[in-house]
């Protein structure tokens, strides 16, 4: 992808006198330099891949919260038959390999599949669908754990004090904030770092469905280790920034 960036002749790779160790150090350093170069040169290719990454993983995380948080709460607060089965299913879903989800989503989205008429294969929408399915059980499972660990007496107390169901739920969400933010962080961390499903349903198409992780895979395949390393730095910077922001939110600004 980043061929627009002029590849300088990397002489260290050609010289057999240079030891493996210095080559290792060189790739890491050159990667950092290149990352800096890519970020400061205003290279629109890199910028586009970055925004696509954030757009896909952000939307997928948001969807998984909208679906996972209510499910987790419901599981934690309501008793019904089959609750244990559902809970273990969700826990099982947390460990589902992304490539398997990618494959199953592909089967649905292919032209020959049941949703083939929507032309979704190899689009960002397809990636969001797959990533949301990947993150959903994680968010649901963590939310369940967060809500269920609140002392149940609190809920009865609030209800008996005349709170409506919605008011009580909102207070419980606030009470379980730490655990729920952990759910969001875990879900987001999973989708932004995911590569198998993105590759399969997105197709790693330049300018359309290429995200940072699939870009790294492609640059490694092309043998451009310095560029791959540079994108890896960018991915790490983005991920850590977002996780830090979420952590600040989790702790109510107290660690600022």
């Amino acid at each position, binding site marked *: 992808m980043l061929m627009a960036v002029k590849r300088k002749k990397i002489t260290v790779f*050609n010289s057999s006198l240079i030891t493996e160790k210095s080559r290792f150090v060189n790739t890491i350093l050159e990667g950092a330099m290149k990352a800096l170069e890519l970020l400061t040169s205003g290279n629109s290719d890199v910028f586009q891949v970055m925004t696509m990454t954030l757009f896909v993983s952000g939307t997928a995380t948001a969807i998984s919260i909208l679906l996972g948080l209510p499910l987790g709460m419901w599981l934690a607060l309501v008793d019904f038959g089959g609750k244990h089965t559902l809970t273990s299913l969700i826990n099982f879903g947390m460990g589902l390999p992304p490539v398997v989800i990618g494959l199953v989503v592909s089967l649905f989205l292919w032209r020959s599949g049941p949703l083939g008429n929507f032309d979704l294969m*190899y689009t960002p929408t397809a990636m969001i669908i797959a990533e949301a399915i990947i993150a959903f059980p994680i968010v649901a499972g963590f939310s369940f754990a967060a809500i269920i660990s609140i002392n149940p007496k609190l809920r009865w107390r609030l209800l008996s004090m005349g709170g409506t169901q919605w008011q009580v739920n909102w207070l419980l969400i606030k009470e379980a904030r730490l655990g729920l933010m952990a759910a969001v962080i875990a879900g987001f961390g999973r989708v932004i770092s995911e590569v198998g499903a993105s590759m399969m349903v997105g197709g790693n*198409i330049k300018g359309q469905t290429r995200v940072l992780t699939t870009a790294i895979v492609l640059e490694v395949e092309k*043998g451009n*280790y310095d560029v791959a390393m540079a994108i890896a730095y960018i991915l790490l910077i983005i991920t850590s920034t977002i996780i830090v922001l979420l952590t600040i*939110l989790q702790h109510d*600004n107290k660690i600022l």
Partner: protein
Amino acid sequence: MIQRRIFIAFLACCLAILSAEAGNMHVLQKPAYAQSSTNRNVIVAMTTSIEDSGLLDDLVPAIENQTGYRLKKVSVGTGQALALAEKGEVDALFVNSPKAEHKVLAGGAVINRHLVMHNDFVIVGPDTDKAGIKGKKNAVEAFSLIAKNQALFISRGDDSGTNKLEKDLWKQANITPTGSWYQQTGSGMGQTLQVANQKLGYTLADRATYIFQKHNLSLPILVEGDKKLLNLYHVMEVNPQKFPKVNTAGARAFTDFVLSPKGQALIAAHGKKQFGQPLFYVDGGKTEKDYGF
């Protein structure tokens, strides 16, 4: 508390701006004169060497500007590309395994097959050349020597065009490659060259990917020039009569472009600036019969 609200609002704004940005990019990518119909997308399955050799970076913008279609290329091994065509999941193919292509063509899944370009395969290996194949003019003989010496051979093992040719060469040498000297990576050409480079093994590579990767490799070319090592790339369209969902106009626009003088000139020029030699030689108007197939 107020601080936190402000912070949440800030995060929400960031997300909104980002989404808008991503949305904008979508709009920007559409050429102004793009088709108004919903089917502006053309899905082309192509062999990995076209992307790994950087040719795609030259071709895609030109195709999109000229035709107004948005190209969705899926870089997969030729085996998988042909399988996708047989299911009608893609609109066009750009692949390099003539024998396998003929089977799909005979099955009626694809139509309008045209030769676009060629280059050749080379056998590369470590300087030490344990099997002593350097300078041999016969690829089958070289393969026999590698097997006889149990010298490490790294195969792609991914049913790509290169892999299909490799299996064919083993067959012609009457060898079923098994044992610890024969290892399969199951990945693309670039990755396989890297593995061969690290493990000091022999491998069969297309010249374009080899030249593109040469700066990271310590594997010289040992065998080249055998007629069996010719690497022909064809385009074809998926048969709309068999698969009604195929974007046949888009597929035709794609094949027309790569066969047009402009497309052929782009292919012929690719690599000249960066490597001092072309990576592909254009064949517009020729057929594989011209090469004795």
